[in-house]
């Protein structure tokens, strides 16, 4: 009996002691880390580059990689396509060793990684592009960490909304009747008031395209906050206070933002119900091509999609070149009423984004990765990127050289007419509440159809609702935190 008890207890004690000793002794040791950017290139390494799908599709990435690999062959550095989803989340992949070394994403996505140090602060002043990129763009990638200001990404491409329209669909006599300011450009694409008037005419005239579809003037889904929140910005609203950095100050209801919402409600009434949900967004490409829509608003990078659709519709390249026009956003009436131009106009301020490169903290070759970023943001390659993808370069020297659209957007950014999407992680909470509100608002002019009362027929009601939206966002951010 004693033997058995002894054996049992010895076994149990040994197991416990073993676990305690091994477990407690084998903890991770901290250790001092060291600065990673030593300037000394790692040799014979392979860098995994995450680019966006358009760059891959249009062949730009291949060109970029080839050029880089040729130049850095002497160091044995090779860059390859990471071959991952373009929206991949570094916070998920990086720590376990599956992430790319260099990633190209939008500023809100990239700056989200800063919270837990998934991307590295970069010595950007060493880069070729440092002086050519606008202060506003660098700002989007700058963040205070432990009381020190760091830059975490290199801006490449500015995204901001543009007006796309079909020149051939302008009214025949526009020089006489639609050019009050006499600048030789049709007022319809310069002032929202005229766009509204023209859209209304088309709608009331019940005009049809050749194939018998109903014609519309301006058409755009209001559901997406990215494109809609700008109307609030234009009249003094903002997302977060202190230059989009203070999540405790949410300002969609600030200033005269209700006027912006009123403008949207008016615009919705001259579109049709398709502006309520998101079907228009994708319809726009083919509908513009078929002449169903006269104009829409979207980002510059989808220009090629419109061209493809117009080619499908049987137009020649010259015709498309001549008649598919992209332009700056039209001006808004100060009054906030599209039927009242008496108080003059304000510029549209729209939400935009800046896409750029960042370097993963989990890369083993930070110096080679930095060399890649430097190479990819050089004048030559940004120029090439612009030629192939039609993007708006963040490098002002390239923008000035190519002129046109790029210059317009670059200027808009520096003048503050493009408000860069907040780079703090709380921005994730604004989309659903705003999306709900914009749907509700776009639906409003059509409510009598479903025998319902208007919800937003006065500015006060809109103002009230916007306040509630801000509260909703606030509670989404802070109640559970």
């Amino acid at each position, binding site marked *: *009996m004693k*033997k*058995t*008890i002894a*054996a049992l207890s*010895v*076994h149990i004690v040994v*197991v416990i002691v*073993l*676990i*305690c*000793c*091994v*477990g*407690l002794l*084998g*903890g*991770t*040791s*901290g250790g*001092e*880390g*060291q*600065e*990673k950017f030593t300037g000394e290139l790692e040799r014979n390494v392979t860098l995994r580059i995450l680019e966006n799908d358009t760059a891959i599709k249009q062949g730009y990435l291949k060109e970029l990689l080839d050029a880089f690999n040729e130049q850095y062959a002497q160091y044995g550095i090779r860059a390859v396509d990471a071959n991952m989803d373009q929206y991949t989340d570094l*916070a998920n992949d*990086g*720590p376990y060793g599956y992430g790319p070394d260099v990633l190209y994403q939008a500023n809100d996505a990239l700056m989200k990684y800063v*919270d*837990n*140090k998934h991307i*590295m*602060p970069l010595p950007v002043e060493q880069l070729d592009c440092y002086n050519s990129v606008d202060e506003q763009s660098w700002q989007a990638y700058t963040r205070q960490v432990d009381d020190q200001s760091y830059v975490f990404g290199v801006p490449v491409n500015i995204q901001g909304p543009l007006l796309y329209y079909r020149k051939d669909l302008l009214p025949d006599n526009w020089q006489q009747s639609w050019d009050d300011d006499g600048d030789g450009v049709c007022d319809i694409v310069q002032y929202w008031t005229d766009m509204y008037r023209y859209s209304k005419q088309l709608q009331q005239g019940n005009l049809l395209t050749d194939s018998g579809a109903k014609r519309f003037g301006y058409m755009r889904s209001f559901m997406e906050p990215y494109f809609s929140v700008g109307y609030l910005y234009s009249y003094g609203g903002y997302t977060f206070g202190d230059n989009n950095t203070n999540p405790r100050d949410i300002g969609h209801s600030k200033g005269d933002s209700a006027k912006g919402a009123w403008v949207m409600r008016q615009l919705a009434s001259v579109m*049709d*119900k*398709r502006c*309520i*949900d998101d*079907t*228009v967004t994708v*319809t726009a490409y083919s509908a513009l091509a078929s002449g169903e829509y006269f104009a829409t608003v979207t980002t510059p990078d989808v220009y090629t999609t419109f061209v493809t659709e117009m080619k499908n519709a049987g137009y020649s390249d010259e015709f498309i070149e001549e008649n598919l026009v992209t332009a700056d956003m039209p001006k808004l009436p100060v009054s906030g009423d599209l039927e009242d131009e008496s108080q003059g106009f304000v510029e549209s301020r729209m939400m935009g984004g800046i896409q750029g490169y960042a370097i993963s*903290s989990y890369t083993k070759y930070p110096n080679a990765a930095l060399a890649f970023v430097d190479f990819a943001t050089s004048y030559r390659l940004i120029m090439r990127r612009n030629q192939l993808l039609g993007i708006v370069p963040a490098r002002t020297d390239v923008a000035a050289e190519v002129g046109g659209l790029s210059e317009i957007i670059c200027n808009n950014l520096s003048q503050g007419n493009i408000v860069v999407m907040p780079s703090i*992680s709380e921005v*994730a909470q604004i*989309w*659903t509440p705003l*999306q*709900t509100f914009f*749907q*509700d608002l776009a*639906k409003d002019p*059509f*409510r009598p*159809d*479903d025998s*319902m009362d208007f919800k937003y027929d006065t500015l006060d009601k809109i103002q009230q609702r916007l306040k509630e939206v801000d509260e909703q966002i606030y*509670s989404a951010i802070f*109640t*559970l*935190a």
Partner: protein
Amino acid sequence: MTAKLRQFFVKIGNGCRQWLAHIGDWFKALPARFAVRWHTFCDFLKNANGKVAASCLVMGLGQLLYHQWAKGLIFLAVQAAMVLFFVFVGAKGLVGLFTLGTVEGNAWYGIEGDNSVIMLLLGILSVIALVLYAVVYTANIRDVYRTQSAYDCLKTPPTFRKELSSLLDRNFYKVALALPILGVCVFCVLPIIFMILIAFTNYGGTVVPPRLIDWVGLDNFGKILTLSDFAPTFFRIFGWNILWAVMSTFINYFAGLGLALLLNRKCVKGKVFWRLFPILAYAVPGFITLIGFKFMFSYGGPINYYITQSGGSAVGFLDIDAKWSSRLIGLGVNAWLCIPSSMLLATGILSNLNTDLYEAARVDGAGNWKQFTKITLPYVLFATMPVLISQFIGNFNNFGIFYFLRGGLYLDGYFLASDTDLLINWLYNMSIDNNYYSIGAAISIVIFIVTSVISLTVYVLSPSYRQEDTYQ
């Protein structure tokens, strides 16, 4: 009718009372059972000889001393493997389960640090391994003790070959169930335990690795209780969720059964052909159909195209004001997705129904309806009651339907949810969209308890659980 209804409720009430009584009895019997165990254990200590003690010290040693080489070596190998496991992984895991990491990582300087969630996971794994170790260890002692008892009674213990062959016969279930149980434990149970434990930590928001995570006790549950927005939203969604689960389970189940019966009729020619159409629906992945249906009912979709073409005004089937039409469309789309599989199931079950019963019924002059209610339904219900319950749970937790059809809305009177969202969608909004994993885990525990009480009660009361061998 009312009498029947009353009888039904009385039956449920009795069932519940019986069940509660059953639980009570179990607890009452506990001391007695424990006493018996203790007694056996004392007997064991008294009788065990040196060889048994050897096995207590090191697994397999006693067996080797009894010249049971194969068995002894197997136990010895397990002992060695376990020791290695605990030295290299297990010990650290067990300690990590308590500390959840002590060194914070900093990827900027290449400091790896501790990853709290991984430590939690490995901790659970190690606990499971420890339990497994205890089980094998006792099995080893039991085994050698059995051998000793056999020799004490002057019998020869069964040979190793014989023991092996019993694994194909009397103990076949042990072999057969080992693999499935292992798989389920690692890939289903372990993650669930992980999530349950997460509810007691501060994981989420900005506190995600490389930040260190800490145990916070019941804080998250406290937060849920004190949140003023929480309760009204919970009950509003819960009500709709119950309604949804009952309705959709009912529709899918009976429509599937009806379809199977219809296709079983003698007069239907070309059964393979007719059955193909539901199969088609089954063949296209659900999320694709959901995207398709969403588009079909959207403002720019084909249905509204025809409505506007014929001069009508487009209808917002799924838009912000469309509470009930969205709910109905959700039910319909869910039926479209689920009926095919429930039809297949019913077909399989019906194939095993004894047709003699119908002959007998026909001789007795029972009509079609009577045959259905007296023979088919009880039989099918018996065979599928557990499935019905799991379908109910599946529908209760049906995430995809409203996520795809009407996601991205937060409506008045709901905290971070819309009026078509089910609890699981709400949970998603909070935990994934907003990264509050620990709160999400706490809520899923609440939901889990509610659903399990409902379904376990139904299950335990069902004839398929109580009289499993009715049809055998």
